[in-house]
């Protein structure tokens, strides 16, 4: 009873799920308004195409539903960013010219960019371009937003990828190690060091690394500016310090979540059984405990990955790294609306996508979540 409990049981395939558990189908259909029985074309299950689809392929339906919601969410985000910038004091013309603005120059810029039109009209025309993939041109530099962003986004992803490549396996591995040596010296060392790293603000960690590795010993490359003509290895050497900073910042969170989730599962009865039947500790953690602890860990990893892409502006500034964050801050400072909108949308898309991916992975790992009650 304990060992083959529903938690570790084989994942039922989508097709059989519907046929063998009619009750769950009924439950998942509750919120739908049209009366399923009223549809004469399908006697057995009834309902619209979407209802049938939900019934037969709950996972695919769930993903589709999440995608739909994401699009709606992105739309709402774009509206909020637009509204937010409108609410900031001063518009592009006055902030771009700063102290040196003359009424005539401000007037010229406003007319040029159509800032004299009502905001609804401007939003709709921007949206019209954006859905076709045209984010327009930057007001300040007159360059294509899409082109500039692709470069900056590439840089951000490059940094985030390597930070994730180091930090995720390290965090999960250390978490498992901490469980294995729970409440003993290695566990305590791992905990103290990672907590210390997370307690220091990221810019401070950055400055410390710069001070020791760039200024004192001169072994690391600083500034971390990357540019087109750089070779791949040069780029790697340039991002070494920012990657180290980011790893230190995100490591503790993921590591501790892994540790807590596994410990939670370890106290359950089926693990005790595994122990009793003589399995080794590491095998129990890897084979039996980890799969059940995976959902919360995935969520934390997804959040941290999202942070690595969109939340690293401070690290970018400290290391002089040309990523998306700095680009967006520059644009907000002068109210360069097309750039801010595009950056905001991309950031939102990353967050939404990563969270969705985390949800879906959690559902795949845990079939019970497939049929929400």
């Amino acid at each position: 009873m304990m060992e083959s409990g529903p938690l570790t049981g084989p994942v039922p395939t989508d097709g059989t799920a519907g046929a063998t558990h009619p009750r769950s189908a009924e439950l998942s259909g509750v919120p739908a308004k049209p009366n399923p029985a009223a549809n004469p074309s399908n006697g057995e299950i009834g309902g619209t195409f979407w209802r049938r689809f939900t019934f037969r392929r709950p996972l695919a339906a769930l993903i589709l539903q999440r995608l739909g919601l994401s699009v709606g969410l992105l739309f709402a985000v774009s509206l909020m960013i637009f509204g937010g910038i409108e609410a900031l004091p001063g518009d592009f013309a006055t902030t771009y010219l700063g102290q040196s603005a003359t009424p005539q120059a401000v007037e010229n810029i406003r007319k040029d960019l159509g800032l004299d039109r009502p905001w609804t009209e401007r939003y709709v025309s921007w949206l019209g371009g954006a859905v076709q993939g045209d984010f327009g041109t930057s007001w300040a530099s007159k360059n294509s937003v899409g082109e500039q962003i692709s470069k900056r986004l590439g840089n951000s992803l490059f940094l985030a990828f390597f930070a994730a490549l180091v930090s995720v396996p390290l965090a999960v591995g250390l978490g498992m190690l901490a469980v294995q040596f729970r409440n003993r010296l290695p566990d305590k060392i791992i905990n103290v060091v990672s907590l210390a790293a997370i307690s220091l603000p990221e810019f401070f960690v950055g400055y410390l690394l710069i001070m020791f590795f760039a200024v004192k010993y001169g072994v690391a490359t600083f500034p971390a500016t990357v540019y087109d003509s750089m070779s791949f290895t040069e780029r790697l050497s340039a991002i070494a310090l920012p990657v180290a900073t980011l790893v230190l910042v995100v490591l503790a969170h993921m590591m501790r979540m892994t540790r807590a989730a596994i410990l939670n599962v370890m106290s359950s009865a089926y693990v005790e059984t595994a122990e009793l039947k003589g399995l080794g500790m590491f095998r129990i953690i890897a084979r039996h405990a980890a799969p059940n602890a995976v959902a919360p860990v995935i969520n934390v990893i997804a959040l941290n990955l999202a942070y690595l892409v969109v939340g690293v502006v401070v690290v970018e500034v400290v290391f002089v790294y040309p990523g998306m964050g700095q680009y967006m801050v520059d644009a907000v400072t002068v109210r360069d609306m097309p750039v801010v909108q595009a950056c905001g949308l991309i950031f939102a898309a990353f967050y939404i996508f990563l969270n969705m991916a985390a949800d879906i992975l959690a559902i795949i790992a845990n079939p019970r979540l497939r049929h929400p009650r």
Partner: protein
Amino acid sequence: MSDYKDYLTRQVMLGKMNRREFLGRAAAAGILASTAGTLFATSAAAQEPKRGGHLKLGLEGAAATDSKDPAKALSQFMFVVGRNWGDMLVESHPTTGAPVPALAESWEPSTDASTWTFTIRKGVKFHDGKELTLDDVIKTLQRHTDEKSESGALGVMKSIKEIKADGDKLVLVLTEGNADLPLLLTDYHLIIQPGGGIDKPDAMIGTGPFKVTSFEAGVRATFEKNADDWRTDRGYVDSVELIAMNDATARIAALSSGQVHYINRVDPKTVNLLKKAPTVEILNTSGRGHYVFIMHCNTAPFDNNDLRMALKYSMDRETMVQRILGGYGKVGNDFPINDTYALFPEGIEQRAYDPDKAAFHYKKSGHSGPVLLRTSDVAFPGAVDAAVLYQESAKKAGIEIEVKREPGDGYWTNVWNVQPFSTSYWGGRPTQDQMYSTAYLSTADWNDTRFKRPDFDKILLEARSELDESKRKDMYRTMAMMVRDEGGLILPMFNDFVNASTKQVKGYVHDIGNDMSNGYVATRVWLDA
């Protein structure tokens, strides 16, 4: 005394002190100026420029929104970029501020200074191989005169009525006489571009000592030596790299680890720590920029000159220079001109902190209750601290100042030039006339003290077309006194430009014109191996 002289001499030899500073301190100590003459001659002769090398500069002030069009250059970063690839018609002398020939070989004013004839240099080639023509010059100036160009030099160009060719000479007809016209053409936006840059304003093709090899807005710009440069006394290094570094600590780390040779905008708060680094040299240059507290002369309660005087006497200028500028600056005297300007009116008594006089004027003004001062850190570095210091010094005179911190975002739109009492800063202008016309003429857009005096305006306009220098100097003296004693300007300090370089960098010219050797830093220095 001789020890002090030796000390000063050593500072000069080490390149730690510029001529102006030496003369100032030496005069204070009673050392003859002739000593200075020989000293500077030898120290200059000892430095023979070396050619070659790759110069790296870490600069604050770049943004992803920077435009490549020189007409729209605003940031410190783009200022240096433009100076590297382009030339103006006229340059200003680094120590005297007088106009010196650049792409214009010579010039001649009419007797009333309202028509100017310029001879354009021949045999100068643009980076694309084309020869500079009079037509290029005319078109460039026309582009900046056009309202639609959104040029930063529009204000300067307003006074030019007509731009035309007379044979092979350039003729500028002004709306009124202006003895300072050549200096106006030193504006960093007015880079001469092929075809005036009308077709390709973003091309970054000019006649400067360096050609642009790559440019990424807000990130980096690289340059290589222009082999066809028309001048031999500049552009000593083979290539230049400008890296955008907006974080002050990152700049200092990059300099002290030797990753860059030069950084700008060293924070006065950390400059003393940076000074201790053995490889680093602090480069501070007296400048024309000043930090100000501005009152609207036409708005109650500041429409009362006694209250204005009370507030002026409540300002402890020495403390401001020490605490806010870390000593890297000079005290101000409530008019916007200092001794770096040509025709500076000497001998005006320095206004000092005097709580008694402040209390006297305050009582006479009949004002009671707190005075509201609005400030923000964007007004100038340390503006909020300065406001609090001011609050303290005014309290001793019995004047209560209420400091209100405003959001930095939108400060220039909602507070500066809008609210009756606020903090702000002014960059320098090439001439006294420009400074007064920009902010103290009754009709000026940026008259941020609402100083509206027809008698002042009249002298200003007269001085502008006066070619007799001694008469002009007298006029500027009268104007300075009017602003000092009746205006709404409290000017506690002129800030130095504080930059730093590694000891490898030689030949740095302390230019009073503007920050970073007037933007020419990369073209003037060389690297000593």
